[in-house]
């Protein structure tokens, strides 16, 4: 008996270090492996099968992927359209959101009265979930904006029902939520610009626009790398606002096929899974989405890093 217990305590002493290591690591590692790592590889595997969400899937090679890129096929046309509209959405956001948030950042770093109050106010919508503010903006676009345009121009303008402007409606709503956040990143960068450089340029007679072009922009270039990256990946991942605001509508036409006009890629993947009930195909779409997202964000960061050095 005594021998036994001393053996155990000896074991503990000998392996105490690795016991502590694995013991402390276990909860986080277990949850992480179970929710991210295993599903990630399962998903890769499922995308090469005819998986139906249950039962034993059969391996079918690249069939799902081929289906998504067969010219003229309905699934292919819908999927490509969804990718294109997501790229359009990301492009609008990259221009619109960054112009707005950089301008806001310039305004609230000029030493105005109450500038902290403005910063906090512009930041506030960022804390409210996309679903909640999506419904608020749906009300504004469907009920308030038409009234205002009716008074102003005699025509009531339903932004979300128009296939050309619905995507802009999503951009505006998400922009309202996200601009304050990007603004704060710019504010932090602008505040880190050494004041003596700005003063020296003022003494040398640099105009406001010259100061922005030759001092501000080069000095905040690293912030642009971050904000463009964030705008890009979050545009691609967008779901909540899209869901609450347009739910994919209105309908439009693409390559002779009538389809949903604003189904961004996330919603498209989820609908393939939940509405069309084709999980294997949805998973193949998700894998392509992952590859596209990784490639363009690597390109963007590389490009911006080079710009940073040039500037």
């Amino acid at each position, binding site marked *: 008996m005594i021998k036994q217990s001393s053996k155990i305590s000896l074991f503990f002493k000998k392996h105490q*270090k690795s016991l502590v290591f694995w013991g402390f690591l276990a909860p*986080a590692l277990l949850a992480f492996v179970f929710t991210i790592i295993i*599903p990630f590889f399962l998903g890769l595997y*499922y995308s090469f099968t005819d998986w139906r969400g249950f039962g034993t899937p059969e391996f079918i090679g690249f069939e799902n992927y081929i289906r998504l890129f067969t010219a003229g096929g309905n699934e292919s046309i819908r999927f490509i359209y969804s990718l294109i509209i997501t790229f359009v959405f990301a492009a609008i956001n990259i221009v619109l959101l960054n112009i707005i948030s950089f301008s806001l950042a310039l305004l609230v770093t000029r030493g105005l009265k109450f500038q902290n109050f403005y910063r906090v106010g512009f930041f*506030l919508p960022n804390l409210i979930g996309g679903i909640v503010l999506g419904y608020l903006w749906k009300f504004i676009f469907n009920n308030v904006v038409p009234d205002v345009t009716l008074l102003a121009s005699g025509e009531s303008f339903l932004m979300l029902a128009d296939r050309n402007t619905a995507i802009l409606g999503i951009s505006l709503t998400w922009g309202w939520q996200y601009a304050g956040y990007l603004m704060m990143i710019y504010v932090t960068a602008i505040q880190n610009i050494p004041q003596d450089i700005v003063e020296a340029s003022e003494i040398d007679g640099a105009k406001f626009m010259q100061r922005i072009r030759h001092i501000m922009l080069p000095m905040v270039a690293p912030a642009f790398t*971050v904000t463009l990256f964030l705008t890009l990946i979050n545009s691609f991942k967008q779901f*909540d606002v899209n869901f*609450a605001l347009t739910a994919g509508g209105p309908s439009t036409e693409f390559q002779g096929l009538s389809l949903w006009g604003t189904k961004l890629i996330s919603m498209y993947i*989820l609908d393939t899974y939940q509405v069309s009930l084709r999980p294997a195909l949805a998973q193949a779409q998700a894998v392509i989405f992952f590859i596209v997202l990784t490639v363009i964000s690597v390109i963007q960061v590389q490009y911006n890093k080079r710009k940073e050095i040039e500037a």
Partner: protein
Amino acid sequence: MTRKKRSTLLLEILTILLFVIFFSPFVLLLMNASKETSFEVLTDPLALTGTFAQLLTNMEEVWTSTNTQYQQAFVNSITITTGSLIAIVVASSMAAWVLVRTKSKISNLIFLLFVVAMIIPFQVVMIPLVSWFRTLRDVTGIPFLRSHFGMIFAYVGFGAPLSIFMYHGFMKSIPYELEEAAEIDGCNKVQTFIYIVFPILKPITITIMLLNGIWIWNDFLLPLLIVGKGTPFQTVPLAIVNYVGAFVAEYQFLLSAVLIAMIPVIILFLFAQKYIIKGMVAGSIK
């Protein structure tokens, strides 16, 4: 008036103007959530016919209505958010500590795995996650789907990488001598962690809790897949979607429901805005 003063005044007016435009959605929300009938809302959303008393009546109606199941949803959201935050903080700080203090190949490799996994978007794992959780439930008997446990477990998994990354960065700045001294004084590893290390982590713990808390409170896709809308385990965003999908006609109630969902975060923001803004900008990697 000098030129400089005039341009400052112009900037001031411009900022106030932008600020008013920026805040108009909130004003419109309050104006219309306080009206008595849906007809009033729809005929003239810009009219100021609402009253504060009516706003309270509408909010009470939404809060107690069996259609919204708002009270249950709030309890669920609070339970899931609190539970997840405690679990994330405990699990990530423990993991980050041993990852920082153990210099071995396997330790570096695991940390790298956590960091690399941050690039995996949720959309890539969401579909297999549901079937995998179903398998886990069937094999172990533990309710991974349609339960608070399943949600909290998943949030630890999705929240751990960034939280560990942030703890890891912070811990590298803590002098190792403190822990050595504690061990010489007779603390074992667990005691050293609880009494010495964890209290020092307080500032970064607050940041991590705010960052994860806001994300979890507002999250929609994960609860949609794990618990589903309309179920007894639904969170606030799910309850709103469920309500809007089924009872769209009453606009004053819909807007009151939206307003109620905003209140908790806005109150939190009023109290902790400095921490929140600083933490969220610091966590901008995510």
